[in-house]
């Protein structure tokens, strides 16, 4: 599984020097039980299952602040995305069902929000 | 033209400008003009020749002649004058001992082309403006010069006499020529095709050294191929230091010094187009390091003894395209 995550993401977690700048930059910190630096560490140490079960993976905003500010070019967002993909690619792993959509819509919600949600939360 | 040159030679000898005259005389055949030194009025009158076969480049002979004491006068065609200037740049010719008469040139003729015209029993060949007049046993033939020109003269790069003390005829100018078109053709081939081409050409080499001996740039006191100390001495292809390497090294040694006079190909008894090697280097230098014409002036630094900080990397050979 660790190799799958590394392959999907193309990230080498060993480049991390544990400075915590990703976590310092993360706007979704409060919504995540594991924070970006922990993602990197846990992938490196093979604790993927725990990450896959965490609800935080759906809260990453893909804002790339962690990617931009990481001094070592580790790209934590790609790891989080890879873990999320590992989840939604599983049978029944979808996080969002088409039935739920109408309920979410409002008059002004742009298409891209839905499209993005579909891309992110289901396969 | 021959008469004007003869008169000039006599005049220079008689008014004391020169003790010796470097010119041409008939060799084995009428079309085989060979360089010669004339010391007396009689010699000039009897033997001095100038004809459309006076292709031999006299400049190289001045390395030795200019050091012999006294003054030597020489006739230099435009392309010879480039070689002469290049040798001056290399401090090989003692300029103060040389009196240069620049001779304008309409292009030299190729005996093979004359033969192809079906001329037999040729007695003499003369010039008449843009025509070549051939006297034969069977009468007089007149051909336009353009039809008989040597290949190197068809792509003549310049009619300018670079260095002279006196000029016979008008000063010419540098010409637009497509002398690199054959090189470009070769470049467009695949590597395998080029290899086959050169294998076919170079494998005919008999190492007679004619190319080297005639080349004004190959004027070393002792050639590396004759020098036991160089580690690469060899004569005929006795052991493994072969023709290709001889020609590669020769081409490399004259890179930036070769004026593209074309003598190497003219004298090759095997008709190997050796000038295509030198032209390739000239073309490359022009493209990579800016246009440079060896012998065009006495000052400009040759590309191989110069550099810029942002020269192309050797990998350009891989990346610039071609196959």
């Amino acid at each position, binding site marked *: 599984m660790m190799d799958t995550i590394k392959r999907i993401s193309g990230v080498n977690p060993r480049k991390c020097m544990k400075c915590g700048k990703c976590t310092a930059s993360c706007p979704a910190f409060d919504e995540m039980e594991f924070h970006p630096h922990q993602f990197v560490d846990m992938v490196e140490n093979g604790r993927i299952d725990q990450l896959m079960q965490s609800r935080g993976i759906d809260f990453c905003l893909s804002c790339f602040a962690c990617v931009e500010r990481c001094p070592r070019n580790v790209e934590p967002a790609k790891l989080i995305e890879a873990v999320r993909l590992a989840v939604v690619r599983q049978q029944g792993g979808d996080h969002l069902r088409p039935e739920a959509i109408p309920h979410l819509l409002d008059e002004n919600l742009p298409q891209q929000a839905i499209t993005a949600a579909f891309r992110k939360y289901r396969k | 033209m021959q008469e004007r040159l003869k008169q000039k030679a006599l005049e220079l000898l008689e008014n004391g400008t020169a003790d010796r005259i470097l010119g041409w005389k008939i060799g084995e055949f009428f079309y085989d003009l060979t360089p010669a030194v004339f010391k007396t009025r009689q010699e000039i009158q009897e033997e001095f020749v100038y004809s459309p076969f006076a292709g031999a480049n006299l400049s190289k002979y001045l390395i030795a002649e200019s050091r012999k004491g006294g003054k030597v006068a020489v006739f230099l065609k435009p392309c010879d004058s480039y070689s002469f200037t290049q040798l001056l740049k290399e401090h090989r010719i003692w300029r103060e001992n040389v009196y240069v008469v620049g001779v304008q040139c309409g292009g030299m003729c190729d005996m093979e082309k004359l033969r192809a015209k079906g001329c037999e029993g040729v007695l003499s060949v003369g010039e008449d403006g843009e025509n070549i007049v051939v006297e034969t046993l069977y009468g007089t033939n007149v051909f336009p010069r353009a039809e008989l020109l040597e290949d190197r003269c068809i792509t003549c790069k310049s009619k300018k006499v670079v260095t002279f003390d006196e000029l016979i005829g008008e000063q010419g100018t540098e010409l637009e020529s497509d002398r690199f078109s054959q090189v470009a053709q070769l470049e467009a081939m695949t590597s395998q095709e080029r290899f086959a081409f050169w294998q076919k050409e170079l494998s005919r080499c008999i190492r007679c050294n004619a190319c080297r001996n005639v080349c004004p740039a190959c004027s070393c006191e002792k050639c590396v191929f004759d020098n036991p100390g160089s580690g690469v001495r060899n004569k005929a292809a006795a052991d493994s230091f072969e*023709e290709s390497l001889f020609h590669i*090294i020769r*081409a*490399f040694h004259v890179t930036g010094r070769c004026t593209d006079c074309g003598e190497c190909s003219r004298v090759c008894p095997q008709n190997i187009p050796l000038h295509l090697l030198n032209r*390739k280097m000239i073309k490359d230098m022009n493209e990579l390091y800016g246009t440079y014409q060896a012998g065009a002036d006495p000052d400009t630094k040759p590309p191989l003894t110069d550099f810029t900080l942002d020269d192309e990397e050797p*990998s350009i050979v891989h990346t610039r395209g071609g196959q």
Partner: protein
Amino acid sequence: MSVNNEFQPTIVAFCCNWCSYAGADLSGTNRLQYPANVKIIRIPCSCRLNPMFILRAFQRGADGVILCGCHPGDCHYTTGNYYARRRMTLLFSMLDYLGIERDRTRVEWVSAAEGAKFAATMNDFAATIHKLGPNRRLEDLRCRKD
């Protein structure tokens, strides 16, 4: 010695004493591997490399020749590698023109600190030469007519 019928190329690496030879030493110090068929000849500066040496190597059976020198601007002798750069560019161009495989010759700038680059370069070059196969075209063009 092991009997190995697989093509084992002979590769000559000319290294300038100040940067690349030291870079080669550094890759040794760091135990970075590269093929044993790469043999290094030490020259004081890349500008000492006479084209004759390269041709000689090919003639005597080398399958690839590489020149390593200080990075442009870092030459121990200030300008040597600039001359080498021009000479090698023209030589390689001429060899290419004669139909010699382009990949048999290479120039790489390797500093004394680039042990890893040295090893990587040699590995890459050896792989390239291995792919090209034995050098045939720079052998005697006249004697050898197949």
